[in-house]
């Protein structure tokens, strides 16, 4: 495959966390700057709607609302017609220990976390990050390296969300800390919402980014893990941010890719790509998640050039 560029506005912003209102105001600015629309206001919150990415009609809605319980902000994804909804994720504000959050918002997805940290410094709380989005679907753009078999299903609704939850002592990994989400996640396909089982078994088909690994049981407690880097050079492989659940690839994150080893968290580097016409372009990308087998890089700006349409896919083949 290749990167799924939206070529739409990407906003990287800092959110004040000193008070719920400031946090919500800064987030509102980030979302609307990324052209999310405000559907309506609710008590101490709003319902937003994402923008359909090019060559897509899919959207999600996002409820952001102060829970009324000690600075906890609720995040809940709704289908675009609001007939179904996901689980409620929380972000903690106003505690004095987390001065700011950071967010990267694109037209079809948003990521939110504490800068420079994976988990919260707040003892007895886990509400430190949240992410949601509509994945990029293949739309029949199969390339020469695909096994172009099977039929693409008709998708009228598809979204996901994850966060570590607000349990006292149990941290549920999400896309800020790991390519696989545990417990506190949900996803929807055609308005059928699946909520994470209360389990931490990797064989459950959890929401995740598909990362490269050896084929044996790398989750076995005594398995000696090795990073996926090239011999003598130490370079990681660069792979698409394929996202899926229940043992099926559902799509890929927009404006994102993975490297197959741990990169320094939150560092930004500039990368160069080219489109199918051979035109090169550059973009910065931030390490949003750094783990042993996978580092997720999110574009913090859309590419410098390369056309207005989304389906340039980096010149690589889709498969």
């Amino acid at each position, binding site marked *: 495959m290749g990167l799924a560029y939206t070529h739409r506005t990407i906003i990287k912003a800092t959110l004040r966390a000193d008070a719920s209102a400031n946090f919500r105001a800064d987030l509102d600015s980030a979302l609307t700057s990324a052209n999310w629309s405000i559907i309506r206001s609710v008590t101490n919150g709003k319902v937003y709607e994402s923008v359909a990415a090019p060559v897509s009609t899919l959207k999600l809605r996002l409820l952001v609302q102060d829970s009324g319980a000690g600075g906890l902000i609720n995040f809940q994804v709704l289908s675009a017609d609001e007939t179904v909804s996901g689980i409620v994720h929380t972000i903690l504000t106003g505690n004095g220990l987390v001065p700011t959050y950071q967010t990267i918002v694109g037209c079809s997805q948003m990521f939110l976390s504490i800068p420079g940290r994976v988990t919260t410094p707040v003892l007895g709380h886990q509400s430190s990050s949240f992410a949601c989005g509509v994945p990029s679907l*293949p739309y029949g753009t199969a390339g020469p390296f695909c096994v172009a078999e099977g039929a693409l299903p008709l998708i009228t609704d598809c979204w996901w969300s994850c966060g570590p939850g607000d349990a006292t002592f149990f941290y549920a990994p999400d896309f800020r800390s790991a390519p696989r989400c545990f417990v506190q996640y949900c996803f929807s396909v055609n308005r059928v919402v699946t909520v994470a089982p209360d389990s931490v078994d990797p064989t459950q088909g959890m929401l995740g980014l598909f990362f490269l690994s050896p084929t044996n049981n790398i989750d076995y407690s005594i398995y000696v893990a090795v990073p996926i880097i090239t011999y003598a050079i130490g370079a990681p492989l660069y792979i698409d941010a394929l996202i899926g659940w229940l043992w099926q*690839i559902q799509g890929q994150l927009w404006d994102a890719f993975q490297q197959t080893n741990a990169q320094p968290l939150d560092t930004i580097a500039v990368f160069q790509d080219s489109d199918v016409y051979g035109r090169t372009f550059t973009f910065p990308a931030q390490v949003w998640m750094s783990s042993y087998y996978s580092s997720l890089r999110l574009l913090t700006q859309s590419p410098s050039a390369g056309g207005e349409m989304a389906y340039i896919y980096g010149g690589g083949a889709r498969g």
Partner: protein
Amino acid sequence: MITDPFAIAFSPARKYQQAAPDQFSIISALASMLPACGWTVTALYYGSCSIDYQTGFPAVTGPPIDPKRIVGCSSPAFVTVGSEGFTPYNPFTEQPAVGAPCNFFALDVVSFVGLQNLASAITAATGFDATAVSVAGPHLRLDLVAKLPGPIGNAVGVQGDGRWGLSTNGQTVGGGYQWESAAGAATYRVAATYQINFAASLSFDFLINGNLPLQNYSISMSGNNAGSVDRYSILTNGYGFVIFDGPDTQSGYPYRAVSLMAMAPYRPPITDPQIPKYEIFDTSAYAVFICGAGSFRSQTSWYGPGVTTSLDGDANTYANKGGFPRILAFRAPGPPLLTQSGVPLVMGAYVMFGQGPLSSAYVIGKLYDCAIVHAQVTGILIIQGQRFLPISSQGGNNAGTATTLMMCIPPAHAGSSGTCNFLLTAVIRLTGDPWTADMVGGPITIGGKPYVVTIFRDDENIQVNDDTVVQLGLPWSIP
């Protein structure tokens, strides 16, 4: 392109055939397949055998006595080589019977000369060059070496009379070849020669990075300790080969010695258009690995016994740790990993391994002609219009990732040709080899245009992916 499309790295040539489970057939198959894929023959081995005359060789004395006595063939023969028997006679008193069904040789007053006469008779009548050798005192020896290299000089029965001479093996052994893999990846050598052993195994002697692996590799020919050995499947390209028959384990036979894989991975250069510019591989690394019996067929991560790697160093053999070879896949423990279209994900096969049991493992490159399918697959799959055969696989039980390593094989009936009538949905064979069902999904060229076979009806009626053509007497061929 910034992310890896996981393209399959195809090599210039591939071969596939099945062979009977005997040493002659396997060596013969490799002898035809490997050079056709770019391997070079680096050594010729000739089948040989000796007859030892430890207490001496018979001699005769004169004077001549006429008329000489007519003698026939001795039974048993003084020496037997294959179907040829050799009978001595005393040239002073005896004369061979004309038309006797054996070969005669003259004894001599000097034992060594008599042995030389025997050697000459054998050389003249068989496929072996025989040489008389004086060992020490009366101790003589007759050495037989096949005139032609390879397996043809093997397993030929050689017997002495049991009184004067004893055959060292009872048959000729050692015939075969050594080959060197093609340039384009790390080169290594492997020899296959006929040997006599309890399990009738065929041994493979590797020379990797100039040294021998600690592990000896062989596959069973007889079924001894291997259950029923039907026919070996042999797949080759310029950089490796795979031989197997069924699984490594069968009921009652948990340690079948029926599989062997050796491969030098493709190390992508920066000029490879299917490699992102940020992925950098060491293109000068010496990297070869071998997976032997019991380690290979039921896994795609090879930490079992009989695994050897060489990575810029000597060959090392493994236990269950360190830099053992492993194929990369998208982590999906349990059921097969499907694409959005509901079919298993397929991609090129990256391999990683290390220097030894105490080392880490690294991504070396891709296995030529190999694809990793995220499901357990049996039978041939068509991938990118090419036929792929499963060579090892594992399920998703035990929290592994369900995967099958598949290797590309040539199209069915590759190289065959003939003429046909193209009649819309039916292509009717007029001349050429009969068509078979395994052509479906594979290529066929008709009238100079490439098509894909979509339906097999019988050995002279197929359908291809174009049902608009009506033309008679077109040439067809399979590339």
